[in-house]
């Protein structure tokens, strides 16, 4: 119980700190949201009217406290660029980003785990060497480049895939997959490579330990040795890297959404920063913060599930 309470308090402190930092950074950054939005054609009357309408002429601390007050009542304020509530904008885009991220995570899980186990069991054999060098390549490839290659060679040639925009799941499952699969793959490939190496190494580390020799000499079949004993023990480091990878996938969506013109949170973040749309940036940063803190929380809980010796303190 105490563990959960501490976690929640930690979440609040993180959110508060992150919000102060983003706010401060935004005050230092040059560039004015109103002028950026209205461009060269605006006259001073329009600029000043909009500024006072949005409350941007008030003192800084007042702007910040209004925002914080809103946060507690669940009101993230209005976007400057889009004249819409930030929460509406986030809600519209959340499904896109969550879908891409979950598909990517699923791919990473389904590919990296079996592949890692396979390679570990065949240590130093040809298949292991090939896999290890291929994944080396996978790690080195930047995702924006991979995305463009996918668009050029798969998206443009295979009818199934669409290279622009997003079709909601509710409209057509096939449609959604046709827009999401390539971006998810783009994020997943470098992550698969990293994850594969972790799985392989942590299994190989376990293999050298005494208990493995003992159960082997006891005559247990190799399958049980690997899946029941080694994998279970190797799970802790694998889980840790999982927490990190999930956070990286969330970050990866920012680039990939831009490449595939997916209307997700990442694309919104870039637009909002270049437009100096403070309330919107703040809202998105809050979402990312909460997401990352929650993932770490989840990983902590999973530790104790995988290894009951670990107590949540």
């Amino acid at each position, binding site marked *: 119980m105490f563990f959960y309470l501490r976690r929640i308090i930690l979440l609040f402190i993180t959110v508060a700190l992150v919000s102060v930092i983003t706010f401060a950074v935004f005050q230092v950054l*040059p560039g004015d949201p109103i002028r950026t939005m209205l*461009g060269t054609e605006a006259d001073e009357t329009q600029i000043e009217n909009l500024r006072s309408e949005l409350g941007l002429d008030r003192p800084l601390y007042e702007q910040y406290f209004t925002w914080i007050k809103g946060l507690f009542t669940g009101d993230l304020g209005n976007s400057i660029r889009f004249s819409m509530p930030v929460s509406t904008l986030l809600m519209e885009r959340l499904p896109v980003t969550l879908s891409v991220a979950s598909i990517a995570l699923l791919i990473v899980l389904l590919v990296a785990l079996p592949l890692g186990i396979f390679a570990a069991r065949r240590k130093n054999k040809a298949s292991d060497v090939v896999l290890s060098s291929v994944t080396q390549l996978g790690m080195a490839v930047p995702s924006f480049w991979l995305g463009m290659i996918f668009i050029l060679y798969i998206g443009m040639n295979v009818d199934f895939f669409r290279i622009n925009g997003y079709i909601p799941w509710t409209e057509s499952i096939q449609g959604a997959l046709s827009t999401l699969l390539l971006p998810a793959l783009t994020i997943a490939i470098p992550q698969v490579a990293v994850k594969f190496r972790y799985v392989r190494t942590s299994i190989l580390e376990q293999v050298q330990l005494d208990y493995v020799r003992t159960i082997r000499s006891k005559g247990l079949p190799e399958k049980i040795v690997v899946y029941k004993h080694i994998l279970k023990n190797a799970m802790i480091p694998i889980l840790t890297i999982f927490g990190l990878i999930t956070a990286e996938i969330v970050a990866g969506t920012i680039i990939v959404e831009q490449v595939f013109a997916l209307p997700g949170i990442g694309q919104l973040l870039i637009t909002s920063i270049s437009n100096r749309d403070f309330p919107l940036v703040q809202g998105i940063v809050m979402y990312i913060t909460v997401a990352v803190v929650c993932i770490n929380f989840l990983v902590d809980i999973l530790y104790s599930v995988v290894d009951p010796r670990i107590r949540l303190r």
Partner: protein
Amino acid sequence: MLKRKCWLSFVLVCVLFLIGACSNSEGDNSSTAMSGDTNGQSSSQAQEIRVRINDDPDFLDPHHATASISFQMILNMFEGLFIPKQDGSLTEGVAESYEVSDDGLTYTFKIREGITFHNGEDLTIDDIMYTFERLMGLAGGEKLSNNFDNVDSIDTLDDTTFVMTLKEPNSNFLYSLTALQSAIIPKSNDGKHNENPIGTGPFAFVNYSPGSSLELKKHEGYWQEGLPYLEKVNFIFQSDDQAAVMNLLANEVNLTGIPGHRVSEVEGNYNVSHQNNNSSLIITFNGDKEPFNDVKVRQAINYAINKQDIIDSVFSGYATPIGSNMSPAMGDYYLDGLQEVYNRDVEKAKELLAEAGYPNGFSTKITVSSHNDIYSSIAQIAVENLKEIGIDVEIEVVEWGIWLERVYSGRDYEMTTIDLTGRPSAYEVLNNYISENDAENFFLFDNEEFDQVMSDVLLESNRDKQIEYYQRAQEILNEQVPAVYIADYQILWGSTNNITGLKSYPFWFHDMKEVKFE
């Protein structure tokens, strides 16, 4: 143990069912998706167009919107008393006819009957009054525009007659009565003009998803019989030019602007049309700072910069050279020949520089925005050119927001390059250089004769004489060179072959009124 296994198999069965259900619905959906696709290909029946636009509109409320990119789209939804034509002149829109009193102060408009708004309501004289009261801030709100500061009063004579009285005569006044400055909007929609914009234009608002698209549909009750042809217009926002070309090739969009160097990829299979954009692409100087306050230095730079190189390498040749702040797209108002005055002449440039007291050149900085690659490409060529006459230029690339704040409104710069977007009125194309135009004169140009010409032209009602004034203004700009006038670069439109009826204007407008798929 057994219990657990039972539970597990139950879950398994559930999952299987789910997968079954999914694949079923997948089957259904794939058939609908297929029929959707065929619609997209044989669009001759569908009459739906997808147009790619670089960025979101700033506002959908036409009185709040200022960015030209917004009007490019929303002019399809709104109309003013007058409608701008392709040659930059005006034609009657919501106003059926008008009269101007002899002193040039009283404008009387007859409002066209039988116009309906997108919501089905008839347009009445109250809506006209409401529109101008809103813009001028007479109805309690703040004033939304400076364009009507010269209006003394507005009034109605009867149900179809609207009168505006000016404080001083202004021959350019009618230009502030188009949808660009004063779109007519219904009183009944007060307070919702941005969320749910309603106008009288050929297309009605359906949906706006920020960062993704703006959907419009045909306005069934449009007053011009038989128009528009299209059932649906979908503006799709995508900032990346390279991705846009791929989208055209993949038939995801029907119409998009394409970069000059990629024309060869789409030529043949797609229509490529080019349009003078009526913008003035310039390299300009801070007229208040030394040495740019010396006209000889400015002229020297004009002689040194190789405009043709810029046109060829940055725009792949798709640009029209200009000699002052006006493009041939402005028709009669444009003064031809000025583009030849500063043909590249390095010796002459050096001479002028020496006469100005800088025989060995000087060092300076050019500040360019990063939101479009063209600016830094232009700056690079300029730097090389200027090196030849001893001027050492450092390039500073900043974000668009910073450029606007520091260079455009802050005037804290030495040199910069930008394109000034076109407007339908010659007056508004040139008024940037009036010394009192604080908001737009970021070159800090201050020339008495120019100011005089620009104030005289407002009092002149004869069009031929107006043209003389405007041409004199161009000559002054060409002599005084507050900027290096490079070119009006063309926008290249790539479109699906079966589209007809695309029109180009001397300002940014994707007019969809007469567009159709053959």
